[in-house]
């Protein structure tokens, strides 16, 4: 369990993290999303006890990272942005050292190192020096290091950076598995990653939280109105009028006419599903219904929308957040 309360971090005049609060329950995978320099890494560094906050507090499994750092750190596995490897050490020696300083008992150490290497698929490089590994392997050795002491909380700063597509899929699968009995916070600026792995998303911009929700709700919430996309073969006729009379439809736009086929965008009242009526209206006139699908804002659009607009006008903006601007 992770709890962050009113966390603020200032570097001199620069406010990197501004009054951030959120929670992550056990078994939850929380995605931390934001453009570069939004304060993701700073927040994670505070959570792991690497740096103290200017204000506010962070709890890991109920332990304050400032007041009881040793207890909190015992329960935290952390993969920093750059995997913290010693280039002159072999992978096995490195993990053994990490296990020691993380307090894994001597008699369990070899087994923990072995299982971490297996989970992250790095057993084949265990005798190689960390400095000679490819970026993908370094990233996974870093991840193995974070798993060693079987921590309750995992904090992963861009865990898939530098991996090839196959490794990305494997790593996402691993993170999903870990989500079962750990609390995972992962940061990323890759949006599909969030929708595929995370249960909830925190979108952060300029140090402030602009939205916290599930990926599905986030995409749905920004649609003020429901929009359907239709392709109708009306043999060259304009189907606008016929669709306008369907109950619940508020607006019909012709996006494109390609020969006899019209591509249309139909807006309707929020919360009202007009797909059946639309289909019936098209078919009853003898036209061909080639395509009918809801247009949803992709997470990319949501993200751009939230991070480029003023925080105060975005949905779920932190109260009073706009006052500073």
């Amino acid at each position, binding site marked *: 369990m992770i709890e962050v309360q009113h966390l603020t*971090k200032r*570097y001199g005049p620069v406010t990197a993290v501004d009054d951030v609060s959120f929670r992550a329950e056990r078994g939850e995978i929380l995605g931390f999303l934001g453009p570069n320099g939004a304060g993701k890494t*700073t927040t994670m*560094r505070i959570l*792991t*006890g*690497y*740096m*103290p906050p200017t204000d506010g507090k962070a709890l890991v499994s109920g332990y304050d990272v400032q007041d009881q*750092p*040793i*207890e909190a*750190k*015992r329960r*935290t596995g*952390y993969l*920093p*942005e*750059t995997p*913290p*490897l*010693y*280039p*002159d*050490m072999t992978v096995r*020696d490195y993990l053994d*050292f*990490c296990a*020691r*300083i*993380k*307090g894994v008992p001597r008699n369990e150490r070899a087994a923990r190192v072995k299982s971490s290497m297996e989970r992250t698929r790095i057993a084949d490089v265990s005798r190689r020096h960390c400095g000679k590994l490819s970026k993908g392997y370094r990233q996974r050795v870093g991840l193995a*290091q974070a798993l060693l002491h079987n921590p309750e909380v995992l904090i992963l700063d861009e865990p898939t950076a530098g991996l090839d597509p196959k490794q990305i899929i494997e790593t996402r699968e691993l993170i999903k598995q870990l989500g079962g009995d750990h609390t995972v916070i992962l940061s990323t600026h890759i949006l599909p990653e969030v929708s595929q792995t995370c249960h909830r998303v925190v979108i952060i911009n300029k140090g402030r939280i602009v939205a916290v929700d599930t990926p599905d709700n986030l995409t749905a919430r920004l649609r003020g109105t429901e929009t359907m996309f239709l392709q109708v073969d009306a043999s060259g006729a304009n189907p606008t009028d016929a669709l306008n009379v369907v109950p619940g439809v508020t607006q019909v736009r012709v996006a494109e006419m390609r020969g006899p086929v019209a591509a249309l965008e139909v807006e309707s009242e929020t919360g009202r599903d007009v797909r059946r009526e639309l289909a019936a209206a098209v078919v009853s006139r003898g036209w061909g219904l080639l395509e009918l699908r809801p247009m949803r804002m992709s997470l990319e659009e949501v993200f751009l929308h939230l991070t480029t607009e003023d925080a105060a006008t975005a949905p779920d903006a932190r109260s009073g957040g706009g006052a500073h601007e």
Partner: protein
Amino acid sequence: MNNILAIAQKELKAYFASPIAYVVIGLFALMFGFFYYTLLGIFIEQGMRMMGLQGGPTQNVNEQMIRPLFLNASVLLLFVLPMITMRTYSEEKRSGTIELLLTSPLTDVDIIMGKFLGAMALYAAMLAVTLVHVGVLFAFGTPEWIPIATGYLGLLLMGGCFISVGLLISSFTRNQIVAVMATFAVFLLLWVINWAGPLTGPTTQAVLEYLSITSHLDDFTRGIIDTKHVVYYVSFILFGLFLAARSVDTERWRG
């Protein structure tokens, strides 16, 4: 304690995994061997000359040969020890591994003591090489062993002071060249600080004399363990380590 040992072992392994340990020990042994050879040569020549004289002063291998050797060795430390300490923190900061240490369940004391003991172990290994030279003297003569033992103790303590200062300076920068040069400059200053004594008043002179790191080594090489000097060295070491620990801590605040 287990944490301290884990870090000390890691440090020691890192020295031997890189060329640093070999260069440091090798160069130190080379220079020490040169001093040994020349001092022994002078000592023997003097002995030859004295043989003709009756009732002259007798020769003492401890006073005339081993003591100057230790004092020369202490000059060598000035050049060699910055190379041992330069990477301790700089390297961790540059490569980001400091983040691993600071987010593991370790205290500041664990980290700094581990690094100190690791550097001390390498330094002790370096001094151990010189036991060969001293052993040769025992094989062909009868030096007193007590001044030799206290001399080594003095060198260890003085080296400890240098290492604690070196750790402190290494914690200031991520650039190893800066660390090594700054450490060397500070060592040299600590070495010669009492030279300014005669230019100042009697009180300042006494203070400077006390601060000078070498003025405390002399008694050790004579076979005397004076608590005054032991207290000086040990408190110097602890103060340096304390400052280094604080320096790492402020680094967190600055981010």
